[in-house]
């Protein structure tokens, strides 16, 4: 038999359920612009029926919990893609700053090489002319300066990157310790309600931030999350985080990244750190090395050729550039003579001879590295810089596209839809009104029952 009281209870239960629904909807609306927020919804369930004999009466609604809508796999894919994207972005940003150091024409080392050899040809026309000699010295100076500037800028960028690496590592440590804390709280809380959901949201957001910095591999066990780098260096295990630190390496004068296991610098392959390290440890040293090789070869060959000749005073030529080879040759390249008379243009000791200029200009067609002439070696550098940037650009736009796609997908799962929430508001309001109406109806009926026979 149904009773008025059980009807009243059902209606009250409904009021509570609709209120919970309203609260969830309001919370969704409040967080619709919160980064990392996953929309929530109340989990309503039919209450167990009341069995009376052959009749089973429905017993209203029960609120069993509040659930967050998220797709963990999607979140992992997003984190994964962010590592790629942040890496390419960091690399492209750095290298794009350096690209102007390697212009194709009109300026820089290439133009410096061309102008230098051109000035020698100009001097050949009138080898005793002091303004033409000055011209050659100025061109030599400009060439040395072009090398100095490029190498200097590469070195500066490298040490800036080094500083960034330090900061990024600190940020990684902050994030891992926050994630570990959340892991701890999640382990402590038995609630599966909205509190739980918001912790997960926060943690997902932190993992994504972390993915922007370093390559992370995520292992989910129940509510706990284990984070390692791709190479397996532990970052977070349950409620414990493992700090990374940086130490200045005496070998290459950059900061290396250490975990408990040791130096992991070379194994970091993703995130902003991955991109910065690739630029700092591979691309820039390779460019610097090639600049040094080119500068060394030019200095040595031009000096050798210069020494074959005689200056305006009839004395044998000395060094045209300061003899400097190997590492740092490009950064330290400098013209050795300041007096234009000391330029050894003559091959017979007479002031009007220009025979040695042919020896000097011959360097332009000689191999300086791997069978390449100076200008070819420079062209090769330009190609290397250009292609590494354009490849990274291609990677960047590919991963950006994928990321945008994934984020839209995620938004369709976890995002807050205004229309949906509005219609929910309406539903809860209507249901609440109906339950309230039911209560007042039961009330009237009770009154009728109470007043029965009271006349």
């Amino acid at each position: 038999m149904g009773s008025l009281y059980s009807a009243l209870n059902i209606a009250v239960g409904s009021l509570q359920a609709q209120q919970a629904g309203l609260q969830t909807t309001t919370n969704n609306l409040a967080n619709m612009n919160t980064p990392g927020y996953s929309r929530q919804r109340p989990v309503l369930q039919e209450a167990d029926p009341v069995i009376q004999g052959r009749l089973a009466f429905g017993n209203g609604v029960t609120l069993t919990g509040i659930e967050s809508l998220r797709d963990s796999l999607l979140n992992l894919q997003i984190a994964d893609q962010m590592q790629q994207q942040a890496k390419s972005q960091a690399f492209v940003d750095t290298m794009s700053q350096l690209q102007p150091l390697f212009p194709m024409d009109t300026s820089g080392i290439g133009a410096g090489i061309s102008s230098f050899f051109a000035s020698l040809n100009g001097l050949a026309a009138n080898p005793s002319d002091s303004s033409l000699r000055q011209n050659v010295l100025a061109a030599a100076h400009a060439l040395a300066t072009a090398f100095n500037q490029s190498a200097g800028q590469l070195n500066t960028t490298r040490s800036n990157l080094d500083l960034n690496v330090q900061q990024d590592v600190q940020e990684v440590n902050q994030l891992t310790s926050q994630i570990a804390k959340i892991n701890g709280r999640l382990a402590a809380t038995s609630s599966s309600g909205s509190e739980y959901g918001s912790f997960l949201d926060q943690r997902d957001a932190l993992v994504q931030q972390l993915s922007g910095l370093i390559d992370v591999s995520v292992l989910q066990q129940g509510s706990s999350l284990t984070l390692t780098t791709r190479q397996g260096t532990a970052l977070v295990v349950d409620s414990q985080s493992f700090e990374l630190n940086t130490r200045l390496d005496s070998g290459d004068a950059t900061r290396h990244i250490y975990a408990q296991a040791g130096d992991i610098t070379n194994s970091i392959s993703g995130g902003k750190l991955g991109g910065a390290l690739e630029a700092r440890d591979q691309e820039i040293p390779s460019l610097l090395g090639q600049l040094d090789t080119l500068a060394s070869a030019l200095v040595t060959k031009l000096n050798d050729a210069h020494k074959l000749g005689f200056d305006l005073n009839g004395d044998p030529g000395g060094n045209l550039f300061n003899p400097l080879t190997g590492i740092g040759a490009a950064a330290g390249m400098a013209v050795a003579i300041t007096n234009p008379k000391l330029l050894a243009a003559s091959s017979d000791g007479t002031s009007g001879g220009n025979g040695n200029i042919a020896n000097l200009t011959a360097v332009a067609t000689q191999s300086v590295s791997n069978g390449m002439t100076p200008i070819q070696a420079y062209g090769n550098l330009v190609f290397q810089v250009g292609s590494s940037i354009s490849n990274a650009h291609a990677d960047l736009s590919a991963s950006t596209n994928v990321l945008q796609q994934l984020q839209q997908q995620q938004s369709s799962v976890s995002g807050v839809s205004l229309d949906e929430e509005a219609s929910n508001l309406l539903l809860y309001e209507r249901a609440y009104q109906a339950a309230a109406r039911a209560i007042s109806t039961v009330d009237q009926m009770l009154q009728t029952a109470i007043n029965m026979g009271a006349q």
Partner: protein
Amino acid sequence: MRLTATESTILLNALNAADRAEQNALLQMTTGRRVNVASDDPAAAAMQVQTANQLSAGDQFLRSISSVAGELQTADSALSSCVTALQRAITLGVEGANGTVSQQDRQALASEVQGISDQVLGIANLNYNGHFLFAGTADSRKPYVLDPNAPGGVAYQGNDQTNEIEVESGYTVPMNMPGSQLFSASGASVFEALSDLATALQNGTGIDTATQSVRAAFDQLTTSRVFYGSNVDQLLSDTNFLQNENLQLAQATNNNVGVDMNVAATNLVNAQTARNSALAAAAQSSSLSLLDYLGKS
């Protein structure tokens, strides 16, 4: 698929992409270049390094040629007046050999020959742009000085060296001819021959022989002088070659890194259209949601 309020992100991405495309097209149009940095097209950029180097070398060759050609032409025209002077000397010698000429007239002829010798000396000591043209590479001092002990009374203090200059990649031309091949070649010295002729005219003996010597010196000079004329011709044809080559290099630059204006303009228009339509779509897409209609009964 559930739709949520992601228009703003989509719009932002679309606008970013359109902005980038627009900037790129604008840059290409303003610089006239498709490849503005190496990453735009690494292979084309590397090739442009070579082309720019060749262009720079070509420009320099042209400048050097014009400087050298000026020098060669000056030398050639000086030698041309020298040739005329020697012709006159030969005429004087032939005149003086005629038995009817009086001693007094021969004296006059002799002093004219002496004058010619002075004139030739001046030409042999010609200075151009601070250096002496006929001194070999020892061109900082006068190649010919008066020296009573020297044969013909004039001593050569230049050398026998020549300078060469590269005028096309890998191709050099000689720039000068030393005086020792022009004025004081052994057995055909202009000064010796003129001096002998002057002496012979004064003495009235051996005039024919002396005139023969002047003729030999004249032949030597005219033969050697051909060097200047032919080199100038050579340089002029090099100039044409280099100018053509530079044109071709400029064309290559254009093909390699230049922009097709039609393409760039189309790209610009496309980017602008994309941007405008993204904005228009955003304006069209209703900012209204169901919320706006509730409670408005």
